């Protein structure tokens, strides 16, 4: 029996060997490749090398943004928090006690020994911080503030990560409980899931952080040489010299200085000389004003932020979908382009990091060189941009309500917001895109609440040149004239009588702007008969263009606005500016959103069915009505666009209907669409625009300035050697003027005074060429009369173009 039992025992000893044997086979054969790769990956020490971000240049290669090589001071998180001191004290206490004795001590006894040594290491840290402050000439308070910021950021990040882990763990356990099928178990409370399971340190808590960024070469070299990190070498064991320096408090433990880059914006502040000898009226002076312009390019260029958001990491993950490592991925502490070109073209500007891989066992080093970011050259002329921004300065008064402007809606002395866009006719290049007020990078950093106001009227962050819509008013008239002729619904030589109002028996509807009590003037009376298109353009007769709008009809009006680049139709080519932060408005022509209620002013009874009645379902999109199409003929009603749209449309007109989509980058290919405008209509339109600014009856020809000795006329356009075609516009904003107490202001007839936006759009060329070279669109918010307010400003912009050599 014994031998039988012995054999049985031998068999029983072999049976349990099957499972480990099987697992051994699985690991060494089935999983060998993956596990070997993972084991060997631990032999690699990879270190990323920063790259150089691309520059942003203007059209004349002036640098608008560039990296300046500098240094960052990096310190491990444990030193930043001070935990390093505790860890070192614990280590030293254990060393002094000896391993066996230490293991025998109770936690309280260990803590006592650590506390005895702690002050030494705390002092070392304090001395190290003070040494860093001295060497870099940085106030210690600034360093303390930076430490505090880092700890807060990391703490927030850790909380988010731990919560995600905890949730993931609960989900796993819940799935496990669900699989158990026990209906009585519905929580994980019965399981003791230790907090340590998900509150493990996150990457940021075990890595280094930049406590000082962009320190100068001099400051970096004042630090001991041991802290300068040599690229390509694995950190060798701490040298004796460094250990001694750390012990003395001369160097902060774990401190090292690494290559970095500071982003500079050389043209953020410019000084502009503005001659005032051609200013209008009392603003004129023989002196040249010096205007300091700040932030004229901030909206376009943007800036960098030094925090990486989750969406940045999602947009550009470290491992791509096909398993490659994207060397442009984001790491904590990276700077990211924010706003404008910096943000919208981040991927191109960013470049790719270099990668140094050291094989730890053989010390072989493999280097993948860094790829600098791409330079981006804009079509913008920075100097021209600054000149225009200077012209909009309240110091000069061109955008300030003046007494002679007879603005009944806005008090004299009020500074007005303004925008201007210049498009080169031949290429579609945007030479300038100015929006005032603007803001500086200091404003963003120090006073963000003054920049990012949730108010489109007050906020400097709004890009009024391309991102905010305005009713176009009369400036659309030449465009719709050409559209109607090209569509075959209007004869180019047709004359229209202006008796002050469109509908014979409704003198209060569809009125011409000149038809005002008590005289109720008409253009027929002023010009001696029915108006031709040129005359209608020159005097901006509303009746003529109501007829044009009516003739085009709802579909025609919407379609042609769309052809000129307005609206959300995906077939409409729009400029791809890719400016993050302040989006480019697509414009609207007849598209009324379900949620935007029409004001009472919009509900105009036309004598024909009006779909917008109080009983109608309010907000489904229902298409432009015939009445609205009539209004859109004069640039009112459900249409809105930006100064960029206006400049684009006029440049198209100058090209006889060839639309070249405006571009902001020099390397962007030209996109052109022929709108098929009738050539005769274009010629007539240009003739009309010329009359508007050059004929004394034109609305854009002169302003009347009140002087002590009487009113005098002054020509609006005075730039020598410049040929101008242009159109003024006074667009009803839909808002009414109110006094300081909020009460509506009324005119002589007792009617509420409208707040109007002042437009002026011109084509300008060199005298004698008879060829427009540039389209300039100017808007002054709530400025009132386009001719009186926007006209003089436009003239100064033409002078600026001349000063920069364009005209």
């Amino acid at each position, binding site marked *: 029996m014994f031998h039988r039992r*012995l054999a049985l025992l031998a068999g029983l000893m072999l049976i349990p060997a099957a499972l480990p044997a099987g697992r051994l086979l699985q690991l060494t054969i089935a999983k060998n490749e993956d596990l070997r790769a993972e084991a060997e990956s631990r032999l690699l020490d990879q270190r990323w090398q920063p790259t150089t971000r691309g520059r942003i240049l203007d059209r004349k290669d002036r640098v608008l943004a560039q990296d300046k090589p500098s240094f960052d001071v990096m310190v491990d998180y444990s030193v930043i928090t001070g935990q390093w001191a505790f860890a070192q004290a614990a280590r030293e206490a254990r060393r002094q006690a000896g391993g066996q004795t230490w293991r025998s001590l109770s936690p309280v006894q260990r803590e006592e020994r650590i506390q005895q040594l702690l002050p030494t290491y705390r002092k070392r840290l304090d001395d190290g911080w003070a040494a860093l402050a001295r060497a870099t000439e940085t106030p210690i308070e600034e360093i303390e503030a930076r430490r505090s910021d880092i700890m807060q950021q990391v703490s927030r990040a850790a909380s988010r990560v731990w919560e995600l882990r905890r949730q993931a763990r609960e989900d796993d356990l819940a799935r496990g409980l669900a699989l158990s099928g026990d209906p009585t178990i519905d929580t994980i409370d019965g399981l*003791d899931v*230790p907090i340590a399971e998900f509150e493990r340190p996150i990457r940021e808590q075990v890595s280094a952080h930049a406590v000082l960024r962009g320190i100068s070469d001099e400051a970096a070299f004042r630090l001991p040489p041991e802290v300068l990190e040599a690229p390509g070498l694995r950190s060798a064991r701490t040298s004796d010299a460094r250990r001694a320096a750390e012990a003395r408090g001369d160097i902060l433990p774990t401190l090292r200085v690494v290559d970095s880059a500071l982003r500079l914006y050389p043209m953020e502040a410019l000084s502009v000389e503005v001659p005032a000898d051609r200013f209008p009226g009392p603003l004129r002076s023989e002196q040249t004003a010096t205007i300091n312009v700040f932030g004229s390019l901030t909206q376009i260029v943007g800036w960098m932020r030094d925090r990486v958001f989750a969406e940045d990491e999602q947009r550009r993950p470290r491992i791509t979908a096909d398993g490659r490592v994207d060397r442009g991925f984001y790491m904590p502490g990276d700077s990211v382009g924010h706003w404008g070109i910096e943000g919208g073209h981040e991927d191109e500007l960013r470049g790719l990091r270099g990668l140094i891989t050291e094989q730890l066992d053989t010390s072989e080093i493999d280097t993948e060189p860094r790829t600098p970011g791409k330079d981006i050259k804009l079509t913008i002329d920075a100097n021209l941009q600054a000149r225009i921004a200077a012209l909009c300065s309240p110091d000069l008064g061109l955008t300030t309500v003046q007494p002679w402007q007879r603005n009944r809606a806005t008090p004299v002395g009020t500074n007005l917001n303004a925008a201007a866009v210049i498009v080169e006719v031949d290429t579609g290049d945007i030479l300038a895109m100015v929006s005032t007020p603007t803001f500086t990078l200091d404003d963003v950093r120090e006073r963000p609440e003054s920049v990012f106001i949730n108010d489109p009227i007050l906020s400097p962050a709004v890009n009024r040149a391309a991102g905010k819509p305005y009713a176009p008013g009369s400036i659309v008239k030449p465009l719709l004239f050409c559209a109607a002729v090209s569509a075959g619904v209007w004869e180019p030589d047709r004359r229209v009588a202006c008796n002050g109002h469109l509908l014979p028996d409704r003198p209060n509807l569809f009125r011409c702007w000149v038809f005002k009590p008590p005289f109720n003037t008409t253009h027929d009376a002023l010009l001696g008969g029915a108006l031709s298109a040129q005359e209608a353009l020159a005097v901006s007769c509303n009746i003529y263009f109501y007829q044009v709008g009516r003739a085009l009809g709802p579909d025609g009006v919407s379609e042609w606005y769309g052809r000129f680049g307005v609206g959300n139709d995906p077939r409409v080519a729009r400029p791809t500016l890719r400016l993050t932060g302040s989006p480019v408005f697509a414009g609207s022509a007849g598209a009324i959103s379900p949620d935007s209620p029409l004001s009472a002013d919009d509900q105009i009874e036309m004598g024909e069915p009006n779909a917008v009645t109080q009983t109608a379902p309010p907000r489904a999109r229902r298409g432009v009505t015939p009445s609205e199409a009539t209004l859109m003929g004069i640039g009112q009603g459900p249409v809105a666009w930006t100064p960029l749209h206006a400049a684009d449309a006029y440049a198209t007109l100058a090209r006889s209907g060839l639309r070249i989509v405006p571009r902001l980058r020099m390397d962007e290919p030209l996109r052109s669409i022929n709108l098929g405008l009738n050539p005769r209509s274009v010629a007539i339109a240009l003739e009309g625009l010329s009359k508007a600014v050059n004929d004394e009856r034109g609305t854009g020809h002169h302003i009347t300035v009140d002087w002590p000795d009487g009113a005098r006329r002054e020509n609006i356009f005075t730039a020598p050697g410049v040929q101008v075609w242009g159109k003024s516009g006074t667009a009803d904003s839909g808002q009414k003027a109110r006094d300081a107490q909020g009460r509506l202001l009324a005119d002589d007839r007792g009617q509420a005074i409208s707040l109007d936006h002042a437009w002026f759009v011109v084509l300008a060329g060199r005298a004698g060429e008879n060829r427009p070279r540039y389209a300039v669109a100017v808007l002054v918010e709530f400025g009132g009369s386009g001719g009186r307010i926007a006209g003089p400003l436009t003239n100064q912009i033409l002078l600026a173009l001349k000063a920069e050599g364009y005209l």
Partner: protein
Amino acid sequence: MFSSIIATERNWANPAWLCVLAGLLLSIIGIYAIDIGERTIAPATAADLAPVAAKQLVFLFVGLLAAGLLALPHERVIRFLAWPAMGVSIALLIFLLIPAVPSWIVTPRNGVRGWIDLGPIDLQPGEFAKIAFVLAAADYLRYRRTHREFLGLLPPALIAGVPIGLIFLQPDLGTAMLFVPSVFAMLLVAGARLKHLAIVVLAATLAAPMAYPFLKPYQQQRILGLIAQVRGDQHARDDMNYQAYTAQMLIGAGGTTGIPDAKSRAVIRFARLPERHNDMIFAVVVNRFGLLGGLAVAGLYMLWLAGALLSAALCKDPFGRLTIVGLSAFIAAQAAINIGMNVGVLPIVGLTLPFVSYGGSSMLVVWIMTGLTLSIALRPPPRMARPSFEFRD
């Protein structure tokens, strides 16, 4: 008198030499593996060995010496010392648990009061208790029949239960667990009825989960870690499963034939495997020598067991038979658990690999076991001896 103490008649041609050979080869593999885990450059001579590997070499010599010394005395001397040894072991185990004992004598390691500090070396009474238990149990069972009854299983269980309980209180769950297969093996070959043993095994299996709440948190965590790993949950690979995961990674990386010496040293070093020269040394061996190396180690244990069980088969003395079986069960169980731990089919319980892992006490004990086995095998079978453990099932 001398011949009554020292066995003079020898059966030199016996299978126990296989145990010596297997033990020696395993010990040499162990020394090499310890050195791999400690140094990045292969030693040119024994003098270049890592300090712990050099110490292990010394432990090997001490072990061989102990084995040789234990091969000398007569079996009856060893049997005479069984119960005194058991008493001394129990006393030492109780001594470990006395709170008043100063820490310079009993030094807790990782919370376990399992070692007595003797200055240059540490004595681990739990290890010697294994041997004392086997000898005592073998002596108890050698001519009895009571274990053929169900209640007759109690006394051997009590003999095992005392050291199990005392070791469990240290707390050293791993070492305590090893007594169970040993007492089972001894009862099995001693003729206990199979159905009785089956009932006990079944009851223990069903009762095992009820012990979970009584486990310490870290012990529960190890079980949870194993469950997580089996389910493919990688959440814990960087913390509570780090040791297990790293061991399996190194084993897998070894492939079929292993990794060259220099590379293996580098891989193991930078993998930062905890306990790489004791509990997880099997992972080091397989990383270096691959599947073939792992199978070779397993084969050497089977060689040791084969030599021991053959010696038991040839031995006619019941004490000798049971002693060899009991000691073999300890070796087999410890090796199986350690290998199972390394490959990830068992939770980590802190058991070393016999002959291979670093440790003076464990090396000495396994060589004492080998020496006892050899001692029993060297004794020629008596010319006239009544058969032992020959019952009818």
